């Protein structure tokens, strides 16, 4: 599938770099047309050596940039989702299960975060953060952090549904400590919605990283990023459209793949739609 392809691309990026002899950092003036700084050759300089052509002004290999960009996107997308899911499941499940003041606190904090214009906040934060913190880590933590309330909402309502079921009450009545019931009885029965919400939130986080990079506050150059490549390509769209096409397609393809996967999972895990699918 598409995702497998992307994941392989991301994982194998350094290997590919070694094989093709292209990396996303090295400037190569020889690949450029000296008269204009545009890639030498048609279609943005596509050739056997440069599969996706080269970047204008620098001569860097676009394929290498896209491949390494996949690493960046996936790393941030997946890790940020992991942060969001871990926080969201922990908070959502405990809020739904224990209820009371804890539920109110979690719910209210989620409301605050929902009411938070996080894009602005991230833009500002990337400006403030001391350079000693790696930007990637910052993005993962921040994007992930702002993602938990959504996961928590889903998990909380699922928890309420599960906790109402008699097997959970049976466990409580048998004298199982609350913590044990939560982890052994409730959580395992939540994985369906959690997997779906996680899968569907990966493309969202990838898109968010790209959007931040597009706005110029994502990962720092020269680390390749699809969003920044797209933003860089805007100006070149009329002279070198291939520069927009490749990272654009990659970003679009990756989000699409994860969305399709998420849809598929949801259909598979939801008995109602599964039944629909039978005829």
């Amino acid at each position, binding site marked *: 599938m598409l995702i497998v392809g992307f994941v392989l691309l991301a994982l194998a990026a350094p290997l590919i770099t070694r094989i093709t002899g292209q990396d996303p950092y090295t400037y190569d003036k020889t690949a450029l047309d000296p008269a204009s700084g545009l890639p030498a050759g048609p279609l943005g300089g596509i050739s056997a050596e440069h599969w996706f052509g080269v970047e204008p002004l620098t001569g860097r290999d676009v394929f290498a940039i896209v491949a390494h960009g996949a690493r960046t996107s996936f790393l941030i997308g997946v890790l940020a989702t992991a942060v969001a899911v871990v926080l969201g499941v922990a908070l959502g499940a405990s809020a739904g299960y224990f209820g009371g003041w804890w539920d109110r606190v979690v719910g209210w904090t989620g409301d605050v975060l929902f009411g938070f214009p996080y894009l602005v906040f991230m833009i500002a934060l990337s400006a403030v953060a001391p350079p000693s913190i790696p930007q990637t880590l910052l993005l993962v933590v921040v994007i992930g952090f702002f993602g938990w309330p959504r996961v928590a909402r889903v998990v909380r309502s699922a928890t309420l549904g599960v906790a109402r*079921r*008699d*097997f*959970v*009450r*049976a*466990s*409580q*009545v*048998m*004298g*199982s400590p609350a913590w044990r019931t939560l982890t052994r*009885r409730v959580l*395992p*029965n939540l994985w369906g919605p959690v997997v779906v919400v996680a899968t569907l939130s990966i493309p969202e986080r990838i898109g968010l990283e790209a959007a931040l990079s597009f706005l110029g506050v994502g990962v720092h150059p020269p680390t390749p990023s699809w969003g920044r490549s797209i933003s860089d390509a805007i100006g070149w769209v009329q002279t070198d459209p291939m520069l927009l096409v490749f990272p654009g397609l990659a970003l679009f393809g990756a989000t699409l793949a994860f969305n399709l996967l998420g849809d598929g999972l949801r259909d598979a895990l939801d008995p109602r739609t599964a039944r629909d699918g*039978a*005829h």
Partner: protein
Amino acid sequence: MTPAAGGPLLSVRDLRIVFGTGAAATVAVAGASWDLGPGEVLAVVGESGSGKSVTALSLLGLLPGSAHVTGHAELAGHGDLLALTGEPLRRLRGAVVSMVFQDPGSTLNPVLTIGDQLTEAVRVHRPGTSRAAARTRALDLLETVRVPDPASRLRAYPHQLSGGQLQRVVIAMALADEPAGVVADEPTTALDVTVQADVLDLLRDLTVRRGTSVVLITHDMGVVADLADRVVVLRHGEVVETGTVREVLRAPRAEYTRELLAAVPQLPAADLGASADVGAVGNAHRAVPDDPARGSLPGLAPAPGAADPVLDVRGVSVTYGGRWRGGGLRALDEVDLRIGAGEVLGLVGESGSGKSTLAGVVNGLVRPTAGSVRIGGVDPTTLRGRELRAVRARVGVVFQNPYSSLDPRSSVADSVAEPLLLHTSDDPREVRERVAGLLDAVALPAGSGERFPHELSGGQRQRVAIARAIALGPDLLIADEPTSALDVSVQARVLDLLADLRARFGFASLFITHDLAVVGQVADRIAVLHRGRLVEEGPADAVLTRPLHPYTQRLVAAAPVTDPDEQHRRRTAWRALTS
């Protein structure tokens, strides 16, 4: 009763309904044939999944596209119902044949008013009717189905009405266009017995008066006895028996029908004239006078010399909500209750009377607002940690819904082993052996331990739940409607099992049910809850045969029995009690 004059209204021949195609196909109805005479009430009975609802839906073309329907359903004067589609079919729906569905809560559109939905039914086949006229007619209809204060109900939304009222509205809607026939799919299953009696009474009244034919779909033999003229018994989509209600209920020909009837618990004949003041059988059988201002029955002083009660509930009240604002919902009102060692106390009452709340208080899930609970002489709320768990180990619990009481991700063996792992320090092999023993005790086939809940039937699941509840050899078993989600035949087997286990292990039991017949079968004593108050308590026989409290009397009178003549007597008694 009324013999078919001049041919049937509806004549169903070789009805066959198949879902899906090829290997995945399920045959829901396999060639059923029956007739419905004019003005006749035809009951279609059968266990769950026998194809009752599907049959009903097929008549009005309401089945999903995945269903393949063949055969004929000749409607007098209108041709083959099954062959109709599109506009002709639409014109027929509601006008000639209408339907009443099972769950009144979901039958009406939650976002439209009652009036809106009723007038719509009035106007759909008479486009000329003015709004005002339709409204008047809707008012009429509501009055006919005896909904109190019909004018204001027209403006209400479905969620603002009780289940019984909703079902009356649905019936009113079905009768709006004076159809020749009504198909009623379990019209009273979701209702309390007393409400059910009311609604059945209404249905009988209306159909008799208007001469409407009714296809009454039900799994309750009591309802059949109450209302039907003739009976069709379905099993696995096939008709196993047809006949008049007397023939079928009194002298069933088919083996299956006999089993079905045998499984239905029977109520003894009751004397419904007693009054609360008659303090009949000493102070073991008592009731509060029918005065809402008076609270629950006060607790009995333990008989001298009797062993300590296993369960001692004193003055327990539970109020939901209302912590700050006052006036929350009082679900239990100073309830006193005692269960001696090895005794089975049946707790009955209609929906919402507080039965589950009381169970919750006993098993620690609900914190009482007042009063105390002692289990084996100790109050669990004063304990923590190990001691608390020791008390919990002495109480086993079986819940109502077999589909949700087992963790779908745990195997049967793991579910049964859970209490053992929690409360004992047995090594895995011992645990395995004990689990095997328990599964054997609840008569589950060897090897069921490896299975997962979804691979078991409802009855089997309930057995697993029971095995889990008795795993630690409890002193007290709390069973909250353990059989109400099961078919009668399955219910009978589970009840037998419980009786058997009690004999073997000697635990006391708090048995909660809304079914008087069931409680009569299992309980030593019966306590009656009414709106959170304990209104009557006494030996099982006494309560069922000579109920004291008016509410209990109504309850007993409303409970249908399978003998048509006995049922006829009860119906008369019921009328007398409610008029």
